[in-house]
């Protein structure tokens, strides 16, 4: 029995893309621009933190600039600032387009976005004052997570209303991933907030909660938003049908089931059964990798993604490759010898950075490149599209540098830790020194991204009243006056 027969209610007519884009314009651009600002902050603060790692005495007299605080701040700025804003903005636009309906309740989105950014700001100020909860990869003070949860609820409310505003005969797989991200985030953050910060469980019990939070935020929340973008844009730009909905569904459910289990270090002070379960989950993650990878490979068969002339497609191709590599690393963690060697080295930080920038940020850069101009009208293009290519290039090179440094050189650190070598410090610092160059490239690409966004807004916001339009008008008036 088809869905058409099951539901007799008529399907609402699909809205025009221009109408949808116009409904998203204000909220989504605000979220994208906020993301660009946070990206600069994340990379800038991260760079400062890394500099302190290489020059320990640098700014050592300022308690609010310790390496630990800067690292926590950099990750908070990236995860909640950049990833949260960009991911939520893209979620709203994609859900509207996939449902064929204008964004519902844009006022809620704006209110939510303000709250969200206020929450991230509060978190960064709190960490600077020494208020972080001590959970690397989460790091939200209680007051900040409360505001973030409320802000996300406002935005999710609009997304859910949009989602249910029109019935489709078939839900595109990207919708599943976006809905999963919307549902997963409050669950993950709520668990961490209540069990780690608000009414913390006993110390020993915090370790599994913290691990689940951090790995779920990365694998499920960021993973779902990034993969939704890849699954949407690759078929769209290559003008092909997604190869298999079944493969996509299999990958989707496996990601949700396994995402919170994987990557627990073999040396964690936890019951052995939970470590073993995590290793089995990491081993099973190979199915997620195959399902997603094979599906997209077949979809884009014969199309050189990285060699494409379309920048969005290039970004999506690189993001897909980065996701596959990190999934492979997750699979590698099933082997306790491998994990035992790398668990306290820079490798896991490098893989996290590679996932964050190589996969997620790259997918968002590609998506923003496609979406942002369309939010104005069909004719608007990036002001300096040539510079936007450098975002792709710099991020890609930076991600590869960090990956190679993290995986290649951390082996030496892990080996030195195992043998008790006196060169352990030298081995520990070497991959971080090389990765520093990658971080510089991330910083530069973030600056260009912010500049591009600012330029786009400068030229096109407010219709005839945009700053650029006013400047052009003044120039034209002056030229006319001069001619007379």
């Amino acid at each position: 029995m088809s869905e058409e027969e099951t539901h007799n209610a008529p399907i609402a007519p699909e809205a025009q893309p221009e109408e949808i884009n116009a409904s998203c314009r204000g909220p989504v651009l605000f979220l994208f621009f906020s993301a660009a600002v946070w990206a600069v902050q994340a990379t800038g603060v991260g760079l400062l933190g890394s500099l302190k790692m290489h020059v320990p005495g640098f700014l050592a007299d300022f308690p609010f600039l310790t390496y630990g605080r800067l690292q926590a701040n950099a990750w908070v700025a990236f995860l909640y600032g950049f990833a949260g804003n960009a991911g939520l903005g893209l979620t709203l636009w994609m859900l509207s387009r996939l449902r064929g309906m204008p964004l519902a309740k844009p006022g809620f989105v704006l209110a939510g976005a303000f709250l969200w950014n206020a929450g991230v700001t509060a978190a960064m100020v709190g960490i600077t004052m020494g208020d972080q909860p001590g959970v690397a990869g989460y790091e939200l003070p209680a007051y900040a997570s409360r505001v973030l949860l409320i802000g996300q609820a406002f935005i999710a409310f609009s997304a859910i209303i949009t989602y249910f505003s029109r019935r489709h005969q078939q839900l595109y797989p990207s919708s599943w991933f976006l809905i999963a991200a919307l549902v997963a985030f409050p669950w993950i953050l709520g668990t961490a907030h209540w069990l780690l910060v608000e009414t913390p469980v006993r110390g020993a019990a915090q370790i599994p909660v913290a691990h689940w939070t951090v790995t779920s935020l990365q694998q499920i929340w960021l993973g779902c938003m990034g993969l939704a973008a890849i699954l949407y844009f690759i078929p769209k730009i290559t003008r092909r049908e997604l190869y298999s909905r079944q493969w996509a569904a299999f990958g989707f459910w496996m990601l949700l089931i396994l995402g919170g289990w994987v990557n627990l270090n073999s040396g964690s002070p936890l019951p052995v059964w939970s470590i073993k379960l995590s290793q089995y989950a990491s081993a099973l993650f190979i199915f997620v990798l195959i399902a997603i990878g094979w599906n997209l490979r077949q979809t884009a068969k014969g199309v050189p993604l990285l060699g494409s002339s379309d920048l969005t497609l290039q970004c999506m191709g690189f993001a897909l490759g980065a996701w596959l590599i990190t999934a492979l690393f997750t699979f590698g963690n099933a082997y306790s010898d491998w994990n035992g060697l790398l668990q306290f080295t820079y490798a896991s930080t490098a893989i996290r950075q590679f996932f964050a920038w190589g996969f997620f940020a790259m997918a968002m850069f590609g998506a923003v490149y496609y979406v942002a101009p369309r939010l104005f009208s069909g004719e608007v293009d990036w002001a300096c599209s040539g510079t936007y290519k450098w975002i792709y290039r710099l991020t890609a090179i930076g991600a590869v540098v960090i990956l190679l440094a993290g995986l290649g050189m951390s082996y030496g650190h892990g080996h030195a830790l195992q043998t008790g070598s006196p060169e352990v410090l030298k081995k520990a610092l070497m991959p971080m020194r090389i990765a520093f160059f990658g971080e510089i490239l991330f910083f530069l690409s973030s600056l260009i991204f912010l500049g591009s966004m600012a330029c786009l807004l400068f030229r096109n916001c407010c219709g005839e009243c945009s700053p650029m339009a006013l400047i052009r008008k003044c120039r034209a008036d002056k030229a006319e006056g001069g001619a007379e």
Partner: protein
Amino acid sequence: MNKSPWIFLGVLFAMSLSWWGMVFGPASQVNAAKADLGDGTSLRPRSGLAQQGEQIYRENGCYYCHTRTATGGTFGYEIQITQFGADEDLTREIIGEKFAANKILKKAFAFKAVVGANDAKKAASEAVKAEGADVEAAEAALEQAAEALTDAKAATNAIKIEETLIALGVSGVTLEGDLAGELGLPIEMSDADKAEVANATFAVSKGIEQWDDIKDTVRALKDRAGAQFKLLPVADDWPDVVNGVARRQSVSRDFLFDAHAMPGVMRVGPDLSNVGARQQDLNTLYAKIYNSQAGGQSSHMPPFKYLFNVRAAEEDEKLPADAVTISTEDGVTSVESGFIVTPTTKARALAAYLQSLRNDKGLPEAPLPAVRENLNP
């Protein structure tokens, strides 16, 4: 996959699986852990300055460069005999030629023989004196016992005094007075000697064997030879223990009373799970926190000078008792030349917290393994 509510419900169900497995399950088990160690002692929560120090550790993000997670490793079993059984030949057969050739074993059984012969001689002497005894037979027995005693004494070859004390301990016999002196033992034992005898053990495996390798030996020693022994885990492929980073694996109960559990991210700096045992001198710890490179030390840790009070020293001013100092060629000097550096409450708290981090006491779920040097002398 086309009905929206199913997607919502499916997502909730899928998430709940990992939530149950990685949050509820382990957290429930760990949350129910008791402080009682089962030997009349229990783990104690931090208090006072050490408790405040955890906050300083967290605030400064120390857990990004230091772990508090000593990892586990592989270990072998060392069979440690605490008292030999009566049958020397059977014992030798069970433990094998390599361990049977040890001088301590020879001497332990020689002690047993001496005590046996001495007892026999005493019994024979009493038999000679007894009324109505078969004097001829009793005198023959006495003569035989005396010869056995002489032979046994001769067998107690001269070895080092420490080895002799171990041999006496594992023999399970008591030797005192002149007889002890004749056999190379102190006539009057000091407390240290007595402790050596009481704690004596004799290893009859290398400490790298797994249970399957030694189970037959263990059963034979117990059931056939009547020996008393214990099984000691000996670190084999266990880097953190072998390298002196920690004394045992970190387990959940090490974090039982932490307000914020911080197992750590990377080991750019050393693991701190046993830093309290490694660094017992408070001044050294302060100097390390103030400036880990002071006195030409090689370190990459940033200085945490803002945790200390620093003022310029007056001319010829003596260092106050709480000044942070380092030892140099010129003697004990201030950690910062020309300045008086004293710890603030925050620095005291951080140091107290660090000194509270110890894992040099075994737990039932994480016993202290021995390191290889502990094998037989």
